[in-house]
C-alpha cells in the first residue's frame, strides 16, 4: 500500500533558508546544502524547495544551488517559485528537479498548466495553492500571498486537476508559522474534491499535527518547514511518532551520503 509522505519544505531567499510566519520571512536558519544532507540522512520522503526571494537578482545562484542539491538528494526533489514559462520548467528539470511547483502563473494562465502537463507529464507538475480566510471564506492568494484573487480554493484545485496537475500543494497563509496545526477544514475540503494527491502545508507545531493532517485532513502527504529546523533529529522523531500512531509511514533508516562538499561551507 502507498505510504503517506513526510515532506520537508525549504524556503530559499537570496541565498539562505528562511523561516516564514504568515508569508513574512523572519529568521535565517542556515544554508540549503546542510538542510538537504540532514533530511536525506534521516529518511525524509521528499524535499520541496521554493525560491521566495522578493526579486530575481539571485536567480542564477538559486539554479546553482539546485544543481548542487540534486547531486546529493536521493529522494524526490520538487522545486518552485518564480516559474513562469515552459522554458523555466525545462531548465529546472535539466538541473535535477524531479517535479516543479507552480503557483501564480498557473492561476493567471490556465494554458500554462495544460501545456506543462502535456510536455513533461502530469506527475511532475505540482500546483501550489496559497489560501487565506477573508470574512470566513477561503480565498486563493497569488504573488507570494500578496494578491487576493477572490477565488474559492476548491474550485481552483478542481480546475487545476482538470488541466493536468499531478498534485496539489496546499498552504494556509493564516496558519503558516503559527504552530497551531494545519487548517484541517481547508485541507479536508480540497482533498475531498480532487482525485490527485494533496500535500498539506502551513502551521505544524508538533508531531501530532502531522497525524491530524492525514487522519482528519485526509491529506496524502504532510509538509512542514520551521519545525524541522528547530528540533534535533526531527524527521526521525516525527516519523517514529507517526508510525507509533498506526499511520503507514516509511521507516526512518539512517543513511550516510558520502558526497564531498564543494565548497565545504557556503556562508
Amino acid at each position, binding site marked *: 500500500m502507498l505510504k503517506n*509522505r513526510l515532506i520537508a519544505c525549504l524556503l530559499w531567499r537570496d541565498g539562505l533558508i528562511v523561516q516564514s510566519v504568515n508569508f513574512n520571512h523572519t529568521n535565517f536558519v542556515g544554508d540549503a546544502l546542510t538542510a538537504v544532507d540532514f533530511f536525506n540522512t534521516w529518511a525524509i520522503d521528499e524535499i520541496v524547495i521554493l525560491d521566495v526571494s522578493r526579486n530575481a537578482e539571485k536567480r542564477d545562484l538559486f539554479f546553482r544551488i539546485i544543481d548542487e542539491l540534486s547531486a546529493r538528494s*536521493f529522494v*524526490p526533489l520538487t522545486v518552485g517559485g518564480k516559474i513562469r514559462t515552459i522554458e523555466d520548467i525545462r531548465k529546472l528539470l*535539466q538541473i535535477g528537479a524531479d517535479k516543479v511547483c507552480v503557483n501564480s502563473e498557473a492561476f493567471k494562465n490556465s494554458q500554462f498548466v495544460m501545456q506543462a502537463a502535456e510536455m513533461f507529464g*502530469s*506527475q*511532475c507538475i505540482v500546483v501550489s495553492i496559497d489560501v487565506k480566510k477573508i470574512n470566513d471564506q477561503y480565498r486563493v492568494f497569488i504573488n507570494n500571498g500578496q494578491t487576493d484573487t477572490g477565488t474559492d480554493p476548491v474550485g481552483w484545485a478542481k480546475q487545476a486537476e482538470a488541466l493536468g496537475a499531478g498534485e496539489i500543494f496546499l498552504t494556509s497563509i493564516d496558519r503558516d508559522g503559527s504552530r497551531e496545526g494545519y487548517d484541517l477544514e481547508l485541507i479536508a475540503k480540497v482533498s475531498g474534491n480532487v*482525485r490527485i494527491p494533496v500535500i498539506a502545508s502551513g502551521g505544524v507545531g508538533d508531531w501530532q499535527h502531522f497525524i491530524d493532517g492525514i487522519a482528519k485532513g485526509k491529506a496524502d502527504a504532510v509538509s512542514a518547514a520551521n519545525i524541522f529546523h528547530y528540533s534535533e533529529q526531527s524527521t526521525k522523531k516525527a516519523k517514529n511518532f507517526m508510525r507509533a500512531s498506526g499511520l503507514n509511514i516509511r521507516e526512518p533508516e539512517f543513511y550516510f551520503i558520502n558526497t564531498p562538499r564543494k565548497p565545504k561551507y557556503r556562508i
Partner: protein
Amino acid sequence: MIAIIDYKMGNLRSIANAFGLLGAETVIAQTPEILSKAEAIVIPGVGAFRDGMKNLQELGFTNALQEEVAENKKPFLGVCLGLQLIAKRSFENGEYEGLDWIDFDVKKITPQSGNFRIPHMGWNELEIKGEGGVLLQGIPKPAVVYFVHSYFLQPNSKASEKLVTSTCFHGETITASVEQENIFGCQFHPEKSQNTGLAVLRNFIEFAKKHA
C-alpha cells in the same frame, strides 16, 4: 561506461547522480553513436509515451537500441517511462507502438475503489517474487521505493507474467519490475528511492560488469 539516453524526456541528472555516487562512469548519450561503445544502456524518463517514442525515433536511437540491446544483448535498464517504452504498445491517450522487447501493454491504473489517487505517487512496498531476480536480489525487506506514474505494464501472457520480479498494490496489482535476459526495467525510481534504490542500481552495475 553506462550510456544514459537523453531523449529530452527526463530527469537525466538524477539517475546520473545516483550512478555516480555508486562509482559507475556514465555518459549522457545525445546521439546514438555512443551506444556501441557503452557497456550498458539506460533509458530514464518521465513524461508521455507518445512523445517519448517520437523523440527516440527522431533522435535516431530506435535502430541503435534495437541493435545493441535486442541483438547484441547489452545490459539495459529502463526506468519508469524508460520501462514503458520497451513494451509492445501503450494506451496512453491513444494507442502507440513501443520497442516491443517484452510482451506487455501499458495501461492506465484503474483502482477498484475511490481511495486510490492517481497518479500513484509516493513510497510503496514491493512484493518481491522469489529471490527477486538480478535487480532485487539481496534487497533488505521491507523494500519501499518511490513511484510516480499513472500508467503501468500489464503482462499479455503467462510467459510475460513470469518476467515480473516484483509488484506493488495501488487499487490493483502494479508491475514494479521486470527482467528478461539482459533487459531490466523498473516502474519505480531507484535513483530516488534512497538506500533501497541505490542497492537496485548497484545490482544492475554488477550485472553490467559481468556481461560487458
